[in-house]
């Protein structure tokens, strides 16, 4: 199933403020939140 993930991003080296970034990822029925983050990280 397709999941829309809004992740709060912050990198003080490039931008002093925090912002939300949206990703669309494919998740299986047994996936955990950590799996979504790892998928985002790898792609």
């Amino acid at each position, binding site marked *: *199933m*397709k*999941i*829309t*993930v*809004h*992740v*709060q*991003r*912050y*990198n*003080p080296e490039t931008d002093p403020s*925090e912002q*939300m970034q949206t990703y669309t990822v494919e*998740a299986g*029925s*047994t*996936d*955990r*939140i*950590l*799996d*979504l*983050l790892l998928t985002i990280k790898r792609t």
Partner: protein
Amino acid sequence: MRINGRERLACKTLVKDVIREDSTEITLEPLRHLPVQRDLMVDPKDFFEKYRLVSPFLIAKNAAPEKGEYQQSQEERRAFDDPTKCILCGACYSACPVLDTNSLFIGPAASIQAARFTKDSRDQGLAPRMNAIDNPNGVWGCENHFECTRVCPREIKVTKAINETKRAISKYKE
């Protein structure tokens, strides 16, 4: 981290448990009350400083037995069965509304560690920890919002333990 606004463990929380039929959106944010270092990562320094404040280790009442280990009845061991489950994940610290306005409050996790050791029959209990917990920023800072109890992934009855510690302090001072 906060998953759809609520403190949960990303390594344990299933995607299917946080999405609804009408919405497949998930919002991920870092824990509150701690400075964000990068993305979802916070600096846990304050959290662990407050944790260490309550001396979260056994301060033995009696000299170590010559042979073997300290003896404890099943009932004595059961007394701290609940608070000893804490994994120091910081969920309660983030959820606690008291920390919104009082950043000096030691927080639920440190309070639960104090309860863990003051309930231990082998420990000196409250005496060595009074300085850290018997003050407005210690356990008395708790206002019974029960948010810590609601978010604890180990299902520790945090607020109940804090209230028991408050009662124990009052009794101790009589």
